[in-house]
């Protein structure tokens, strides 16, 4: 029979695509064919076994089952044809057969009581499904403190014939509703033995809060099995729950978490939680089983010092926990190990980034030395603020190299840092030496001693001595001493100066230098005195009377005195006698001895407390100079003067240059300087030198113990301009010349070598403005200058001057340092008489000649002149035509005179002076004349009377200003305007003054001060500020003080703002005093404010 059977469709398909893709297609095809055939068979043979299906769970035994007609109890015989008739009997419709080899095998199932319905199947391994046994969780435990679940199970690998890979799926569920939390995969290998497996999972939610369930299944991926592989069934579920006590609790308790992580905090409670709070923030609740709730905190930030509180509040209760969020310890930075005493190693480090965790969660440090295996633990200081990260490690004897590892640990992690150090060579940082002392050894050496703690027995110490001399010069000296343990050290420091203040301090290191210790405190020390190293610098001078020899010496400099000089001894010895002066006190630096003119050798000795200096000797003899010495001139370089001379082999001892201020009286000695005999030049410098002062320098050469004056030099350190002008006088004056004579300037006032004079002269008179410009600097063209470079010249004659003219003469002296001040004088030249005579005679002569010539000419041309200038006049009486003309003229004249019989009138105008001269005609009537301002300024007496003929009109203008000023003025004017400007209105005339006195469109409003009659007017007149366009004078007609001002106060409001330019009340001042409106508008504004305070 050629029958195929269908394999059972697996109940569950797992997510393994690998398995599906290889077998599903074949399976589908087979199923389809099988179904077709089954129908055929069933139609032929009803009641035969069919639908044979085989599975395996261990690859050793196949479990085959088939379907049979129901309702009959039949015994089946299953035979595998190829296996020598190996048959298995079964009372059920299934049986187990050993696994068959790959390939097709014919299986016949024979119901024993029904031989007619034997079914035959072809069975192949490819049609077998491998479904592992359901795994079983042997043990599920929980670590509540870490929220970890630990699962243990047996893989039952012994049941499998060969090695296979197994995939385990573990599902975690939560809450009573069994909500899936996670599905994890775990891979292992079957190795033919039963093996226990462990697996752990950490929950984000504390396990105490809710029941957690676990189940698992597996999938065996056997490479040798070609059949269909499927997942096992899920194992039975196991759960973990916390048995709460009656107290509500919050989990996790006191947990330390990493900053930035997410944390779930839950509360196990029997009451309803109404509020959850994390720090200050309120959190939304996640409801768990029962009344239990949880909150989730995302991206947690660093906690404050005492941690962050999480609080759950119910109606009656409050529970909470503390979360500490921080960082794991940073790698210890700058780990450094060194020793100060070679007994103990100090390792220091910087903890790096703060962990944010304090108290019990703080970082703990352990220092581990790997060669010795020793370690020390960091003990936190009592005061956390004063923490210094250092650990002390006791040195091991004879051990040089140490390998340190510093481990930092806190609940969130650990880190470490290592250092390998050769302690004796590269890590000795000695303590600061103590007990530092300085003691005298001699005048040029001291001994230093100090104590240094530490075991330096096997090495040398390198110490540095800092020597500061008189707080200025510093010197460092290195000394090496042999090291000892905890002991004092001594060194001698030499090459010091006697009697000198030194400051010493010291620091040490080892010879294999690593670090200097700190400096010791400074010690000051004065070295002891020694005898003066040289005799004082000596000079001598004969006194002015030549009887006494004055011996001078200079105090010894401190480096030669070697102590405090107490006294000097002076002795003068000749072949015959010796005179001496002893114990001359230190402050005295000269001595006078009466000597004859013999040759003496003078010896000066300086003495201090230790002894006397070598004598300093000088001969008294002065060798006369054969030649007359010229006095030379020299100018210095600002701070000194340079002198040079020719080399003279005769000079065997030395040269001496002495100098003095030439202008001072007394013996010429200010200072001296000795230079060696081989020198030919010297620079003389002294603090006493001043610019503009003349000094005399004398160069002496020493020969055979006697001094000879070689040169005499007069010089200045620096030349300056003369401080005074030379005195000059006029010796003689003529009509065209002046003779001037002047005197020398004293040396002290000259302040330099005189180089010449500048003489200025020009016309000028004393006291005139011109004179001021007649200076040498003005560059006036008519000023003449004479430069007199011959300084011996003392007179000057100025010629070619004008007679009887005033001249200004100016004389100035100059040096190389500049031109001195001027001295001026005015001189008038004498009169030149000849010139005067000529000046008179020539015009007289010219006039006479002109007169004579004119007379002659007039006489000769007298007829022409008469015709031209004085012709004969005809007699009018002989001309009739002229008679008519005459009558006409007379008639006109008569008419005019008859029409206006001329009666002289007086026009009297009161006017200011400035205005009056402009009135050239009575027709011009200045509007200014009518202006009250001007009227007030006019002087009543100052009036002009103009005579004229026309009839007069008299008008009296009431002038309030004039009235109030107490005076009256009456303007009587001719009504000219009425003639020429008949349209002009009186109010326009009143407005005219406004325009006439310049633009004054606005009016000063006396707002703030109560206005009184007189002052108000003055204020208004003087004000040039803002004014309403109104006639100013009318505003003053009614003052606020007047009774009417108060009367009309009620009308103010209706008038509007008085300061408005548009207001007609202001623009049309009252002509009629009876008009109440005008009056009110005139003063109301002021009054309004005046009355305001009284309201």
């Amino acid at each position, binding site marked *: 029979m050629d029958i195929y059977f269908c394999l059972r469709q697996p109940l569950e398909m797992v997510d393994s695509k690998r398995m599906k893709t290889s077998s599903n297609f074949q399976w589908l095809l087979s199923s389809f064919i099988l179904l077709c055939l089954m129908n055929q068979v069933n139609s032929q043979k009803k009641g035969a076994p069919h639908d044979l299906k085989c599975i395996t769970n261990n690859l050793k035994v196949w479990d085959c089952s088939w379907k049979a007609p129901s309702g009959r109890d039949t015994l089946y015989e299953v035979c595998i044809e190829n296996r020598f008739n190996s048959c298995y009997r079964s009372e059920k419709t299934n049986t187990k057969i050993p696994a068959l080899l790959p390939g097709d095998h014919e299986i016949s199932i024979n119901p024993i009581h029904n031989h007619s319905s034997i079914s035959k199947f072809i069975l192949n391994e490819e049609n077998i499904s491998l479904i592992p046994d359901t795994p079983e969780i042997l043990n599920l435990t929980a670590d509540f403190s870490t929220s970890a679940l630990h699962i243990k199970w047996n893989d039952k690998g012994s049941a499998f014939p060969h090695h296979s890979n197994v995939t385990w799926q573990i599902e975690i569920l939560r809450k009573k509703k069994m909500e899936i939390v996670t599905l994890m995969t775990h891979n292992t290998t079957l190795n033919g033995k039963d093996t226990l497996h462990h697996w752990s999972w950490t929950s984000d939610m504390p396990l105490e809060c809710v029941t957690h369930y676990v189940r698992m299944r597996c999938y065996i991926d056997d490479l040798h099995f070609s059949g269909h592989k499927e997942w096992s069934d899920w194992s039975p579920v196991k759960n973990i729950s916390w048995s709460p006590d009656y107290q509500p609790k919050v989990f996790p*308790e006191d947990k330390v978490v990493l900053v930035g992580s997410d944390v779930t905090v839950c509360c196990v409670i029997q009451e309803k939680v109404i509020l959850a709070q994390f720090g200050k923030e309120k959190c939304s609740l996640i409801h768990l089983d029962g009344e239990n709730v949880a909150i989730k905190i995302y991206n947690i930030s660093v906690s404050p010092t*005492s941690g962050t509180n999480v*609080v759950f509040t119910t109606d009656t209760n*409050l529970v909470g926990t*503390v979360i500490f969020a921080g960082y794991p310890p940073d790698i210890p930075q700058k780990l450094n190990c060194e020793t100060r005493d070679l007994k103990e190693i100090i390792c220091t480090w910087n903890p790096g980034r703060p962990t944010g965790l304090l108290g019990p969660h703080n970082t703990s440090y352990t220092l581990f030395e790997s060669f010795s295996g020793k370690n020390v633990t960091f003990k936190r200081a009592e005061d*956390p603020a004063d923490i210094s990260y250092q650990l002390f490690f006791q040195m091991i004897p004879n051990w040089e190299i140490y390998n340190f590892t510093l481990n930092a640990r806190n609940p969130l992690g650990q880190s470490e840092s290592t250092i390998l150090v050769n302690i004796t060579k590269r890590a000795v940082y000695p303590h600061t030496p103590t007990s530092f002392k300085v003691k005298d050894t001699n005048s040029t050496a001291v001994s230093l001693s100090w104590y240094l703690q530490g075991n330096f027995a096997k090495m040398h110490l390198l110490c540095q001595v800092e020597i500061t001399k008189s707080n200025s010069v510093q010197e460092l000296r290195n000394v090496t001493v042999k090291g000892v343990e905890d002991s004092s050290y001594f060194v001698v420091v030499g090459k010091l100066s006697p009697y000198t203040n030194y400051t010493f301090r010291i620091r040490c290191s080892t010879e294999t230098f690593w670090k200097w210790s700190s400096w010791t405190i400074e010690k000051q020390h004065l070295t002891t005195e020694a005898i003066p190293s040289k005799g004082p610098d000596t000079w001598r001078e004969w006194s002015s009377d030549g009887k006494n020899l004055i011996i001078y010496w200079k105090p010894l400099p401190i480096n030669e005195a070697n102590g405090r000089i107490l006294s000097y001894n002076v002795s003068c010895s000749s072949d015959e006698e010796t005179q001496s002066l002893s114990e001359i006190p230190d402050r005295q630096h000269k001595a006078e001895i009466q000597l004859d003119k013999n040759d003496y050798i003078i010896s000066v000795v300086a003495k201090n407390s230790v002894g006397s200096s070598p004598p300093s000797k000088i001969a008294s003899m002065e060798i006369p100079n054969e030649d007359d010495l010229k006095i030379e001139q020299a100018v210095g370089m600002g701070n000194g003067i340079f002198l040079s001379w020719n080399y003279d082999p005769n000079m065997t001892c030395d040269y001496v240059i002495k100098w003095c201020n030439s202008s001072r009286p007394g013996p010429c000695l200010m200072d001296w300087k000795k230079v060696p005999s081989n020198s030919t030049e010297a620079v003389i410098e002294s603090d006493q030198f001043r610019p503009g002062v003349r000094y005399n320098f004398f160069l002496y050469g020493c020969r055979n113990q006697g001094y000879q004056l070689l040169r005499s030099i007069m010089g200045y350190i620096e030349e300056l301009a003369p401080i005074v002008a030379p005195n000059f006088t006029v010796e003689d004056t003529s009509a065209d010349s002046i003779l001037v004579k002047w005197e020398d300037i004293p040396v002290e006032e000259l302040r330099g070598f005189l180089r010449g004079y500048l003489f200025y002269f020009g016309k000028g008179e004393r006291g005139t403005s011109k004179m001021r410009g007649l200076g040498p600097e003005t560059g006036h063209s008519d000023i003449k200058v004479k430069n007199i470079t011959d300084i011996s010249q003392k007179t000057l004659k100025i010629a070619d001057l004008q007679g009887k003219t005033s001249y200004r003469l100016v004389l100035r002296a100059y040096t190389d340092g500049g031109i001195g001040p001027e001295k001026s004088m005015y001189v008038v030249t004498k009169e030149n008489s000849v010139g005067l005579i000529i000046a008179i005679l020539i015009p007289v002569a010219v006039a006479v000649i002109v007169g004579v010539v004119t007379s002659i000419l007039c006489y000769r041309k007298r007829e022409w002149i008469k015709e031209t200038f004085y012709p004969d006049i005809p007699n009018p009486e002989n001309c009739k035509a002229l008679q008519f003309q005459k009558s006409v003229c007379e008639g006109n004249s008569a008419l005019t005179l008859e029409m206006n019989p001329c009666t002289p009138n007086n026009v009297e105008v009161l006017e200011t002076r400035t205005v009056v001269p402009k009135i050239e005609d009575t027709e011009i009537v200045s509007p200014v004349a009518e202006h009250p301002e001007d009227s007030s300024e006019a002087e009543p007496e100052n009036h002009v009377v103009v005579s004229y003929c026309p009839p007069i009109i008299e008008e009296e203008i009431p002038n309030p200003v004039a009235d109030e000023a107490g005076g009256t003025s009456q303007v009587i004017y001719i009504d000219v305007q009425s003639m020429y400007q008949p349209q002009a209105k009186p109010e326009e005339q009143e407005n005219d003054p406004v325009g006439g006195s310049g633009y004054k469109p606005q009016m000063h409003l006396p707002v703030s001060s109560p206005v009184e009659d007189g002052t108000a007017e003055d204020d208004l007149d003087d004000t040039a500020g803002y004014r309403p366009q109104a006639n100013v004078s009318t505003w003053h007609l009614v003052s606020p003080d007047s009774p009417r001002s108060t009367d009309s106060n009620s009308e103010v409001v209706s008038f509007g703002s008085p300061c408005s330019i548009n207001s007609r009340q202001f623009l049309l001042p009252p002509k009629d005093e009876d008009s109440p409106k005008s009056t009110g508008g005139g003063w109301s504004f002021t009054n309004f404010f005046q009355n305001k305070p009284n309201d």
Partner: protein
Amino acid sequence: MPTGDSWGLLACLCTVLWHLPAVPALNRTGDPGPGPSIQKTYDLTRYLEHQLRSLAGTYLNYLGPPFNEPDFNPPRLGADTLPRATVDLDVWRSLNDKLRLTQNYEAYSHLLCYLRGLNRQAATAELRRSLAHFCTSLQGLLGSIAGVMAALGYPLPQPLPGTEPTWAPGPAHSDFLQKMDDFWLLKELQTWLWRSAKDFNRLKKKIQPPAAAVTLRLEAHGF
């Protein structure tokens, strides 16, 4: 209270503290009666109230929210060992002087011990300094109460062996419960200081002898 007044009070009470060794009740050399020492003890309670106000502000801020929130009023959990200051008014009135003083003395002995434990646990140096300073002051108050009791002839209560309060932050005591205990410790301290002030005021009025009586007693001593 203006700042100036606070400082004045502070200075005054510092002086009081300084002179504590000179309290006659402590020295028992003279016998001016217990009046002055009661007055000084009363003053000291007022000073400690002031000092505690500053300390509590710092410490509650250290504990963090919600402990430093003004309306925070948690149930009293786990702080059962702390001596309670709250007492029924009738019971308080019915207390005799000896019992009153004994209760005060016992309460402060316990509170001081707890406070020292608090100091050991504080994480910041500033807090430790403040707590140490307050502990010293509280020690002074305890001495002062002992002085008053001695002056009145009452024996000091002897601590029963094994009942001495100890500070043992074990693993069973969570940080949060510890904070709650700290909170209640400060709160009880404050209540006790209020109560003591009232106690000593009452005692002062009761003990205060009339001026004549004092004179008489002095005369009796003189002869």
